[in-house]
């Protein structure tokens, strides 16, 4: 379709504005700095703009349009009332530097979220400042770094990461200045305690790990791993991207973790918006709490004359004693935290039921796929990514057999699924599973959808290789040439098209 620059309104077209408060001729402008040439932006009227973006959106796939089993991403439904709340003036038209008594409602919500997140994860304190999971990782690692500096253990310059870890784990640790020690997993995808023990010494600051792990398996040895790491004086860091699997059933605290980040946009359903925004709060045990970025929200007894939102309670900002400082200039993605607060309120203590349904749906789908595949006689074309009885909120399948037998890759299956009207599962991640498809249905998909997907998945697996290689054919464009993109970089509208 057209791009923006194909719209050719006359000069002055576009959004009409009220007159300036003072005529331009009377303004004392910095003449030597005046712009010589206007940005060569396109000129659209509102009708053209609305149609342009409407049609762009129609070339995009979201949870609202169909099943989105993207492993590790927790693509659950976004309750619609949350968007209504997020557009209220009490959030949109609020400045983070307003005095505390202007923001009691927001502070109350922050306080409630800090509390709830701490409770769910078994942590002592929480900051809501990081704006994404990766920033949360970085923040927690920075806290650990300062904690050790404070304790005079500056020699702890290394962080252990399993080979199946998400890329942000090593990237965040490296950004903070740590050296990465990668440990291999066992054959069935779980922690290799021996391999772990082998790398541990007093240069280790922390181990970063997610549980259930990237293959959707619960790390049954997690307590032992914690003990080992703690044994050499290191800290245990919990990547909360998979938190949706366990709320109310276990917690990072119970497993022995010292710090955790939450992907609010996953577990608590801030809409992903095609890549963001997110929110990545972190929770820590008491010994790390003084290092959290500030301010966090605290509460004290209200004084006479203070207009409270909760009788007798006054919410206020507090700077942690040895704070690492800030990772975002304001108070994080307050609008996202608010949506997630509304999400939390929808479940309350029944967050446990939510997690149970996430696990129920994943296991149900896994069973259904295997059953359908057996019935259709294509069960020899893929295997479980890891041997297990029960998965948690997601599971992996390896298309390695199909590749060997027919030359059909995980990517081919992914594109075939697009043609059936589904978003594809995560492909080729984790790298430890060859030809990996990683499937996470979430708790908000109906049984009927899972049944249908199982059937359709098996149908795609059974499709002839030539058709699969040519897939997709029903999408807005056919298979996109990523190599061409990288070789012929075109990152903006070409000069010739202006």
């Amino acid at each position: 379709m057209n791009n923006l620059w194909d719209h050719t309104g006359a000069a002055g077209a576009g959004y009409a504005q009220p007159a300036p408060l003072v005529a331009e001729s009377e303004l004392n402008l910095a003449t030597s700095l005046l712009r010589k040439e206007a940005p060569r932006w396109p000129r659209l009227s509102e009708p053209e703009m609305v149609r342009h973006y409407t049609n762009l959106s129609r070339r995009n796939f979201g949870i609202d349009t169909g099943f989105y089993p993207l492993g590790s991403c927790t693509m659950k439904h976004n309750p619609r009332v949350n968007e209504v709340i997020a557009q209220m003036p009490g959030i949109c038209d609020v400045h983070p530097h307003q005095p505390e008594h202007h923001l009691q409602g927001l502070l109350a919500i922050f306080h409630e979220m800090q509390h709830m997140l701490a409770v769910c994860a078994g942590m002592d304190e929480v900051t809501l400042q990081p704006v994404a999971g990766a920033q949360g990782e970085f923040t927690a690692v920075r806290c650990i770094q300062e904690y050790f500096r404070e304790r005079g253990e500056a020699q702890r310059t290394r962080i252990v990461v399993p080979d199946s870890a998400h890329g942000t784990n090593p990237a965040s640790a490296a950004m903070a200045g740590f050296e990465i020690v990668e440990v291999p997993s066992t054959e069935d995808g779980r922690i290799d305690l021996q391999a772990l023990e082998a790398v541990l010494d007093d240069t280790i600051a922390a181990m970063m790990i997610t549980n259930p792990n990237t293959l959707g398996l619960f790390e049954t040895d997690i307590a032992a791993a914690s003990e080992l790491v703690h044994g050499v004086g290191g800290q245990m860091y919990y990547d909360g991207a998979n938190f949706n699997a366990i709320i109310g059933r276990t917690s990072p605290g119970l497993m022995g973790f010292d710090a955790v980040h939450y992907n609010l946009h996953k577990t608590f359903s801030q809409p992903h918006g095609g890549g963001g925004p997110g929110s990545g709060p972190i929770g820590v045990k008491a010994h790390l709490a003084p290092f959290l970025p500030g301010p966090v929200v605290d509460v004290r007894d209200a004084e006479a004359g203070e207009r409270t939102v909760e009788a007798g309670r006054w919410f206020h900002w507090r700077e942690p004693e040895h704070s690492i400082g800030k990772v975002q200039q304001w108070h994080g993605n307050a609008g996202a935290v608010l949506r997630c607060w509304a999400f939390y309120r929808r479940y309350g203590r029944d967050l446990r039921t939510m997690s149970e349904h996430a696990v129920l749906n994943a296991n149900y789908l896994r069973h259904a796929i295997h059953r359908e595949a057996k019935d259709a006689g294509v069960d020899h074309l893929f295997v479980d990514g890891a041997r297990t009885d029960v998965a948690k909120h997601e599971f992996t399948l390896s298309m390695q057999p199909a590749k060997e037998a027919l030359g059909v890759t995980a990517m081919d299956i992914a594109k075939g699924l697009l043609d059936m009207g589904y978003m594809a599962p995560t492909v080729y991640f984790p790298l430890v599973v060859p030809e990996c498809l990683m499937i996470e249905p979430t708790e908000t998909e109906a049984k009927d959808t899972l049944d249908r997907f199982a059937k359709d998945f098996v149908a795609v697996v059974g499709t002839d290789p030539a058709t699969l290689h040519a897939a997709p054919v029903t999408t807005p464009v056919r298979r996109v040439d990523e190599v061409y993109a990288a070789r012929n970089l075109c990152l903006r509208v070409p000069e010739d098209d202006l």
Partner: protein
Amino acid sequence: MVDQLPNLGREAEMLSAMGYTSMDDLFSDVPVDVRMQEDLPLRPSQTEEEIIADARRLLGANVPLGSMASFIGAGLYRNHVPAAVFQLVTRGEFLTAYTPYQAEVSQGMLQAMWEFQGLISELVGLPVANLSVYDGSSAAAEAITCAVRVHGRKATQKGVVYVSELVPPDRWSVIHNYTQGGGIELRKLRHLEDGTLDPASVAEAAGACAVYVEQPNPLGLLDASLVGVKDIVGEHTAFIVGVNPVSLGLYEAPGHYGADIVVGEGQPFGSPMTAGGPIYGIFACSNAYMRQMPGRIVGRTIDEDEQTAYCLTLSTREQHIRRHRATSNLCTNETLIALMGAMHMSLLGPEGVRALAVRNAAALHAVVDALQGVSGVELVHPDGHHFNEIAVRLPGTAADCITALEAHGVLPGFDLGRWSDDRADQLLVTATDQTRPEEIERLATAMAAWCAEVVA
């Protein structure tokens, strides 16, 4: 909750299809010693109606700027986001998509982000822009680490970066956190009494990996001397400029006066202040920095039928491929907010963005006019040109002033004492396109009353 879980009430059926009898069976792999034994000590679930009522009550207790005469900015600006933007951005296809890993069914967002890159590129005068980073502060920080990666080898001042001393402490702190791990040393780039850069300090910075300076600066001052910086610091020192993008409707694009990297808070285009987030950071650079950029980038390409198509590109810089050697840890970013920015910019057009900048300049002009009539109030940089905001010196502390003016329904600005103790009597007064004449009148009246009282 009932309305969120489609399989509530069908658990038994689903479990039995798997040969299980209870939910517990699905958690049998959780070792007993790490199992949570009790219910979560949290409140009961609520319905949509109850949540909305509580949200109304709580958010209703906040004080929206629109309910006062408000002159607070300091990095975030009141704006008007055209109505079409909200209605389009909440379309489920945009709102509920993930990162466009499967390009074939994500062309809408990919193209929109490619267009965003083009709009930003044109605005700042540099050939390459990514599809946004978290915010203006991390953009500044990432620009510095990017510059160090590019210039680390050839820099004569290894690992050294000069950062304008006017950068507010909160932003400085973000920059510090992001850069300390790379062994980067931040030094202060000094400003003269009149607020402009100290040429001597700029000269010192030659041979460092980068200099970072903002235009307009955090006190709202436009500094014509920035035009000469690149010539002074030289080829091997990245010249990084942080901008308020709206100002570029009227003032020169830093890319046109030598900036190698331009960053900024995108917020005034497309996003309400939202208590500070979600907003989005702008990041643009010259070609030399392209392969060391952070964040996601969309490229135009072709599909199997040689039709135009779009996809993420230059991915080998990123964490999911390069892991601990990635140019940044960015994964989830601020795409949707950048999309709002793109929509806003596309409605404005070249003349519209100029008009918007003029409205901002005019509002500040009117505010300055009004304040100059208040005896006791002095401009900190009376000879400077300002955009969006200006620092004024008061006959008392800014903190007291803010407290006193609240009774008049006026929030007169930002207390610069929060940035530095020696500015405790300075107030940063912000005006934008949304500032109304009545607000200015109320400000002047209330300020005059307070000054008279303080001086008396």
